[in-house]
């Protein structure tokens, strides 16, 4: 039987089919924003057609579908979510609107002319009710049920179709929130109700409330979509399992994720590092920079020793999302990024993007010069074979757009295009440096795995700037997220906050918390037919030195914590702390705050097919040549172009060279050579 992964992105819906032989087939359809299930089935339809089957015949032979979608992120960014009401502890109505300060993390302090934060739930839809729990978990004031009913009625009458229940210290004791949720659900069974401790049972109210509100905001649409997809697949005879890709790098069945909709944010990009990690593994590399350059953004993930990092410090636009997400920092750099001249007279590229509409000037609608236009002017992109010839490019239009920007700086079109190309590469290289050095790593110890439709053109140049020795451009580069979804484990994460110093730890209490989380995990997995014997548990704890405000996550021992293994854990904390911050304080007492448990059920390892070596000369794959301009020399050089489909393992090239494919183009810059590996990926190495 076949396995499918489907990634619904902003522009394209990517579908990968893994045959039992290990062969991968790639399909792309346009994303249909109004009803993304249409694009989903269009992509599957293309796959069915490839096998000469009807959609029903094809789906009958599918064992499992892993699905990532930008739906949640798009709803949030375009603010088209539910009408959310919030019920909170009386006297604390403005926690979300106040945030932690007047700016999110990215604004300059010298810019006062900014619009105040508009929370997803306006003040009139935030209602306080009498109740109070303390940080110890003790309930000081039980929920005033009649007041709750009254306030909930108000919100329902206002037309709220989603309600977030957010009480202080609910992470320590969720009883009041639970009761409130029950009552609201009884009052209105069709309303999407979420309680903050169920989404993120961790202390710090702004972060937890904001996350719960976001979950409620995207919840109804996510539920509708997931249910529609589920029934659509069933109607078409699919008996395979549908798994959703989550922000934390795990996959889950639909029933388990509709109540935690916020986990579907960033669901596509979170997968790419897993694909990179798999491909790196084929070459014995486990220090990887997984990058993905699409139309508007450039994502980076630093995979150190095979470990995919996660973070709980994310923002989506102006909104704070505090769940743990795969740490994929992003910057506005992509094929559509536009050139402009700043107030100091410097040429800048991005973060504004031409997007899908109007798109780069070359597409025939837009006027402004984008990175794609610059790449076209430089000869890197084939005007006649962009996306396999599906999109015709207007070289003359690109030329004019680029020349217009350049004229302001007294540069001609190809000089300007070169500066644009290098500038965008620098923006991306800087993000890599920043992300990497923040974690204390040297970029030169890493291998770059280049995904995204535009990644192939820019990867080698970025590597050259950063002295990164090796670049892998996967055969599936343009469908990197979809590929990563093959490597996902099924899983869920649990957490409980309980703040105690190392000398005041109550081992029985901690064992109790873990027993509670394991019980919940057993129930959750049993409900989807997975037995406990198939589960793997990974416990960890977030801790800090007494007095600090930020935590470091440390692995917990597999067995219950006791006086003996506590010593080893503390030692590990001091070591990890020093690794992160260049010093530590073993003389200082540590504080334990949040206990976490990650529960996974391993997926079947993927096997991609090994291809036989080349019997032929690489020149048999030659499809022509283009006049290209490269760094440092404005004179165009005739550069050979090859057809990736016709290249075979063992084929070697020396830069400058171009490798074209129906989904992307790869540029081997001067000073780099290229080799096709046994899996049809390209390895680019500095000479």
């Amino acid at each position: 039987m076949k396995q499918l992964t489907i990634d619904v992105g902003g522009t394209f819906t990517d579908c990968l089919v893994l045959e039992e032989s290990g062969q991968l087939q790639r399909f792309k359809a346009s994303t249909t924003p109004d009803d993304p299930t249409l694009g989903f089935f269009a992509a599957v339809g293309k796959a069915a057609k490839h096998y000469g089957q009807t959609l029903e015949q094809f789906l009958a032979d599918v064992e499992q579908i892993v699905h990532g979608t930008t739906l949640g992120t798009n709803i949030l960014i375009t603010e088209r979510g539910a009408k959310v009401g919030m019920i909170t502890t009386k006297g604390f109505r403005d926690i979300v609107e106040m945030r932690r300060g007047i700016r999110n993390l990215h604004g300059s302090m010298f810019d006062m002319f900014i619009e105040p934060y508009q929370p997803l739930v306006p003040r009139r839809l935030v209602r306080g009710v009498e109740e109070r729990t303390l940080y110890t978990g003790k309930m000081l004031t039980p929920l005033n049920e009649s007041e709750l009913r009254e306030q909930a009625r108000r919100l329902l009458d206002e037309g709220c179709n989603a309600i977030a229940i957010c009480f202080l210290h609910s992470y320590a004791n969720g009883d009041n929130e639970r009761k409130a949720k029950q009552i609201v659900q009884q009052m209105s069974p069709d309303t999407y109700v979420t309680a903050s401790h169920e989404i993120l049972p961790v202390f710090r109210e702004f972060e937890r409330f904001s996350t719960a509100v976001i979950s409620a905001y995207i919840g109804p649409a996510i539920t509708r979509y997931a249910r529609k997809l589920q029934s659509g697949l069933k109607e078409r005879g699919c008996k395979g399992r549908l798994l959703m890709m989550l922000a934390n790098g795990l996959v889950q069945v639909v029933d388990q994720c509709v109540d935690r909709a916020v986990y579907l944010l960033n669901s596509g990009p979170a997968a790419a590092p897993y694909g990179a990690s798999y491909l790196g593994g084929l070459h014995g590399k486990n220090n990887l920079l997984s990058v993905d350059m699409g139309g508007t953004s450039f994502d980076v993930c630093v995979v150190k020793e095979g470990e995919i990092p996660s973070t709980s410090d994310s923002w989506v636009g102006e909104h704070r999302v505090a769940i743990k997400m795969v740490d994929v920092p992003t910057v506005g750099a992509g094929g559509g990024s536009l050139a402009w001249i700043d107030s100091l007279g410097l040429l800048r590229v991005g973060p504004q993007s031409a997007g899908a509409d109007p798109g780069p000037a070359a597409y025939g609608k837009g006027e402004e010069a984008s990175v794609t236009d610059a790449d076209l002017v430089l000869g890197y992109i084939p005007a006649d074979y962009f996306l396999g010839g599906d999109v015709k490019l207007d070289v003359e239009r690109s030329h004019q757009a680029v020349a217009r920007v350049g004229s302001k700086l007294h540069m001609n079109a190809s000089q300007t295009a070169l500066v644009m190309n290098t500038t965008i590469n620098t923006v991306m290289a800087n993000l890599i440096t920043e992300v990497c050095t923040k974690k204390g790593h040297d970029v030169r110890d890493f291998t770059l795995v280049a995904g995204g439709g535009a990644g192939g053109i820019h990867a080698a140049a970025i590597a050259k700037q950063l002295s990164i020795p090796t670049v892998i451009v996967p055969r599936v580069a343009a469908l990197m997220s979809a590929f990563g979804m093959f490597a996902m484990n099924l899983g869920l994460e649990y957490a409980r906050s309980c703040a105690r110093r190392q000398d005041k730890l109550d081992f029985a209490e901690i064992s109790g918390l873990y027993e509670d989380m394991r019980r919940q995990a057993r129930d959750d997995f049993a409900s989807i037919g997975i037995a406990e014997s198939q589960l793997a548990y990974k416990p960890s704890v977030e801790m800090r030195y007494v007095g600090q405000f930020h935590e470091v996550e440390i692995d917990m021992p597999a067995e219950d914590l006791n006086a003996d293994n506590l010593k080893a854990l503390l030692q590990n904390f001091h070591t990890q702390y020093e690794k992160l911050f260049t010093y530590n304080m073993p003389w200082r007492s540590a504080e334990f705050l949040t206990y976490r448990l990650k529960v996974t059920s391993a997926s079947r390892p993927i096997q991609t097919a090994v291809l036989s070596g080349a019997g032929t000369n690489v020149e048999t794959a030659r499809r022509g040549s283009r006049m290209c301009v490269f760094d440092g020399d404005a004179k165009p050089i005739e550069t050979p172009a090859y057809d990736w489909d016709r290249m075979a393992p063992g084929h070697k090239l020396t830069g400058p060279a171009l490798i074209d494919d129906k989904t992307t183009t790869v540029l081997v810059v001067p000073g780099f050579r290229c080799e096709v590996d046994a899996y049809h990926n390209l390895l680019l190495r500095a000479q």
Partner: protein
Amino acid sequence: MATIDQITLSTVWYGFQSLCREMRAMVTRTSQSYLISTLKDLSVGVWLADGSIVAVPEGLPVQFLGTSFAISSIREMYKENLHPGDVILTNDPYHGGHNTHLPDWGYIRPVFYKGELLFFTLVRGHMMDTGGSFPGGYFANAYDIIAEGLNIPPLKVVKKGVLDEDLNKLIFNNVRFPVEVKIDTDAMIAAGKFSENRIIEILERYGKDTVLASIHQMLDRTERAVRAEIAAIPDGTYSGESATDDDGTVLDEPVTVRVDVTIKGDQITLDFSRSDAQRPGFINSVYASTFTRAAAGVILYMDPALADFHNEGSLRPIKVVAPLGNVTNCRYPATVGASPINVGCQMLEAVVEALGKARPDRSIASWGKHRGDYTFALDPRTGERYVRTTFDYDGSAGAVWGHDGMTGPTHLTALGSVQRGSIEEAEIRFPWRMLKLEARPNFTGHGRWRGGCGMDWRAVNEGSDGRMSSGSSDGDVVQGKGALGGQRVPCARTFILRGNEKIRLKPHRIDPVKTGDIVVKLSPGGGGVGDPWTRPADRVAEDVANEKITAEVARLVYGVVVDPATLKVDEAATARLRSTPPTQRYEAVINEETLDIEMKPLVPQAEQTT
């Protein structure tokens, strides 16, 4: 000098900006000070060897824009005796430290490359304690600056990479919470070392000449852009003034800062000569600190597109005049404890008011004043002493041209770069239980663009009896101004509810707090910009719907008739009401009996003080 291509220029520049952000992030993640870690009361930057600012993307202006002065005196003091691995500490406003007040400790590191001194880096943070009469350095009635805390002139605490144990022992023996202060010290020194490594990497990659040429070119480009912005302001002299409630020693007597801003071509001069003379109380400012306020005020009026770049080039066209002995240029040993906020905030407000007259389209109203305190008592859960301070009880931002002010505790002095803490975290950490943190309707400066909402903060003391210093809080008497007919900031109040008693706590005082006391802080939103009578009616109705203002205020202050039941605007009645200017203006006033916010006929400030 090497010729620099566009790419190298941008790359080098971005490198310096990003290393500053990383330095700040590193200290906030490792620090144990609430101020540094959660509130981000911390600044970092890079300077050239001659003291020119290279990059100052993040922090509190007062903590770092004036570091050039300290670097000049360090060079003069140490001459050839600066070496790789040296770290210089200073918190002294006088004696070459040019610092604002004692709790802000700055760690300055000279950065050498191939034996040549090329840069200085600074990490400066607000420490938990700095010795002196009362924890935290906000002792209102100190005899002189020696009584305010440890005075550390620029001194090497680390020499060629080796810690001076004796000196450190002396320092840490004279602060409260020495372990905690030491932790933050280590974090700040480590961040300095980190930035040195990053700077050397940049120098290795691009070469010294290229890096320096790139920096000089950026300074020149920024200077040109800032001069062009100044040139666009009509020539003339514009004045502004603002006052603090009192100086903490001579009570209930406002202290006024006045500035005359003269624009002539592409030059700007800010003259503070007409300000009050220096005071016995702790609200004085040294020149370097005054300079930073003036510069920050000017920078706010520059094109926001320049916001990410500011450096020495931005400061070159700016001249600041403040005669010695003035409250804006105090003479040793004047006390300065409250200086970052009083009269720091007043200086910024005065500059902003003056420039607003020159550029009405970039008007900025005053913000709610700081309502902070330092509370010092025992935590019965641990039996340990604690000191608590936050910005969580401050009011909200004022309006600017084109935008309402944001709701949330903040104040203008820090340009909104400090952060609110977490209620849950604070309850775990301090023996105070929060009763309320919520906006109060109407409690703001109304305007075409209005201030953010005023705040109501209440907590009960579950710890021991102790003392509370209202420190640099302000705004009980003197009200920050609105702009272009926007309303001024309402007055603030703090009370202790003890049984049936209601005790008012004024700013700049130290008062006892007892177990079971409920502290109430009513902290107004910021001022408005533009006449509230001209605010679009639908925005007014939206504020009524969101219970940010009442229907009564919509009518009285905004001239908009909103049906309280349907929340719809009565267009005809509104048009009638707005056809003439209001006969009486009203502003929000706290009823000290009921603690309600009431609307009272507006009395101009001049009449009020006489």
